């Protein structure tokens, strides 16, 4: 049994097979080396690992799909063991005095070209096999095990870190838990884990060189421990705890259908955050009163082209209809910074968090913004949609948005296309917006405080930098004061204010938020019922008096 420690993102216990997530195509650098023998030793070691992986795949395929289909893995093994292939690699390493990664990549390309040049369709296809084995070797050399996450059975996904575009590709039903080596508490892997309400660890003291792929693992999300190859005693202990947690969960289920009202009669709306229509089931299962944050950028991240008006319309319509009259707050496109989308062709920035992102992209690329707005206004006919604009810093931006909105509505009217009148609100996630909230409140229907960015910008701490986690204090009095101020200004103008950042789900602050008069908390679906429990047990007046 090996034990590793990481930072907890979400509690709970997961027991299952480990699947090491492989990144896409390798970037290989040509590096001069001094010791060709040592380099070749690395190659031999990697080759052995790759051989074993192929044997594993062969055995699995043999059982599942029969010998005829399994044979390809045997062929791959032979290719890997081919003298010409191996000689070519050794030759490049020794004659050019370069790293083996470069030699493997070059040899793979050369052999693939040989096949690609053949006048036989079938043989041309074999270029892919050559590339496949070379990729496999490069992955092993790079310390990544095996093929991409094997999602044929639910598994514990272990990765260096997962980019948003990678997490969206995962089959969520097949993920028991995430364990990453890097990633911060606010990285997208972490957010995804909270949305899915599955145990997850980040910053785990684990080297992906270790061959853990396929082994049994246990993630103790609460304590931040990851066991690989657990011994009997640990396994039995964890199974027992998993059962107990399950019972606790079931107890929370008894809170379903209850109103979110404190002992002294203060009501609060408990909504859920989602990033994908696939999350709708968990929203309903956890009895959320609505959707407080639908991250529409995931529609864009999942595609390799700009999603069309029709594609978006269908998604928004489906969400609105599924929620059947409950409020669905859809945030307009929030990409840039850590959320990148190739086809937007955004330039590299030195300081992307402060850069070209969110509403700034929408306002300067009106064709993108208009397409989304048309889809949103049209979908509003089918349910209670509310539109939320991210990254607002000034009244000027709101005025510009209003201009685009009225022009879009005019256009729809002219074309005779039906549209609804959704509520329109803004995210308060910049200190500028918080400070100007008294003015901004007069122009919009609601506020939703995005605490992740608000904290990052207020404390001037990059939330992607794990080294800064110890300085990143979301309970900083400056943040709490701002939230309180924003809520107060909203109420003065007669609008409501909610919180949709991670802080909203921080149960140590739920009473404090109730005391501030926060109208809505939008949290990951799994946090709705635990927070409802706190609300039901709180007496706000007593809490205020006791402070």
């Amino acid at each position, binding site marked *: 049994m090996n034990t590793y420690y990481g930072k907890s993102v979400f509690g709970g216990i997961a027991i299952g097979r480990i699947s090491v997530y492989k990144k896409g195509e390798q970037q290989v650098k040509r590096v001069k080396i001094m010791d060709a023998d040592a380099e070749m030793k690395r190659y031999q070691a990697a080759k052995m690992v790759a051989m074993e992986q192929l044997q594993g795949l062969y055995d699995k395929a043999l059982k599942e799909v029969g010998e*005829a289909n399994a*044979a*390809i893995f*045997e*062929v791959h093994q*032979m*290719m890997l063991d*081919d*003298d*010409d*292939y191996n000689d070519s690699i050794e030759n490049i390493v020794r004659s050019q005095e370069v790293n083996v990664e470069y030699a493997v990549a070059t040899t793979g390309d050369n*052999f693939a070209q*040989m*096949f690609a040049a*053949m*006048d*036989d369709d*079938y*043989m041309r296809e*074999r270029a892919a*096999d*050559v590339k496949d084995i070379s990729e496999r070797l490069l992955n092993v050399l790079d310390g990544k095990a095996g093929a991409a996450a094997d999602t044929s059975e639910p598994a514990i996904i272990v990765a260096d870190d997962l980019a948003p575009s990678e997490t969206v590709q995962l089959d969520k039903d097949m993920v028991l838990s995430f364990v990453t080596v890097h990633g911060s508490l606010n990285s997208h892997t972490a957010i995804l884990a909270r949305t899915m309400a599955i145990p997850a660890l980040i910053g785990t003291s684990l080297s992906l060189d270790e061959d853990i792929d396929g082994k049994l693992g246990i993630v103790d999300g609460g304590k931040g421990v990851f066991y690989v190859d657990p011994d009997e005693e640990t396994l039995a202990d964890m199974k027992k705890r998993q059962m107990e947690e399950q019972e606790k969960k079931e107890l929370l289920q008894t809170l379903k259908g209850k109103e979110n009202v404190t002992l002294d009669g203060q009501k609060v709306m408990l909504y859920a955050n989602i990033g994908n229509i696939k999350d709708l089931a968990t929203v309903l299962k956890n009895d959320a009163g609505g959707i407080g944050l639908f991250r529409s950028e995931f529609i864009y991240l999942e595609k390799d082209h700009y999603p069309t008006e029709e594609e978006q319309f269908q998604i928004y319509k489906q969400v609105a209809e599924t929620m059947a009259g409950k409020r669905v707050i859809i945030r307009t496109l929030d990409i840039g910074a850590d959320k990148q989308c190739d086809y937007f062709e955004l330039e590299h920035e030195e300081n992307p968090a402060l850069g070209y992102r969110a509403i700034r992209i929408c306002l300067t690329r009106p064709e993108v913004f208009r397409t989304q707005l048309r889809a949103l206004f049209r979908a509003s006919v089918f349910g209670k949609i509310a539109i939320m604009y991210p990254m607002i810093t000034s009244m000027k931006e709101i005025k510009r948005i209003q201009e685009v909105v009225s022009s879009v509505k005019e256009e729809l009217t002219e074309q005779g296309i039906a549209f609804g009148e959704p509520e329109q609100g803004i995210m308060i996630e910049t200190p500028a917006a918080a400070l100007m909230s008294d003015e901004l409140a007069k122009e919009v229907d609601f506020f939703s405080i995005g605490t992740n960015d608000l904290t990052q910008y207020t404390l001037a701490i990059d939330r992607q930098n794990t080294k800064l986690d110890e300085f990143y204090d979301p309970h900083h009095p400056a943040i709490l004061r701002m939230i309180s101020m924003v809520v107060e200004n909203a109420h003065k103008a007669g609008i409501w204010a909610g919180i949709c950042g991670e802080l909203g789900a921080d149960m140590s602050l739920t009473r404090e938020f109730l005391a501030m008069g926060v109208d809505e908390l939008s949290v990951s679906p799994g946090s709705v019922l635990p927070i409802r429990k706190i609300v039901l047990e709180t007496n706000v007046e007593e809490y205020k008096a006791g402070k």
Partner: protein
Amino acid sequence: MKEFKYVITDPEGIHARPAGMLVKAVKEFACDIKIAKGGKAMNCKAIFGVMGLAAKKGDEVTLTFDGADEDAAYEAISKFMQENL
């Protein structure tokens, strides 16, 4: 040295899987075994060489065996070719 000529009858030719089977069979023997098509001779123990010939149905290939166990290899491989290719 022994030599054996064979015309491929398998409709797929010596594609990846049959090539793999051939290489596997050939590797059982210590002697040097080459496979040639149209004057191009390849090491029969190397799958890239065998596949590189792109031998199709109707193509004639020549196998040569050279070494201590060449007789046994000749026997076994010619049988293998007839049965599988």
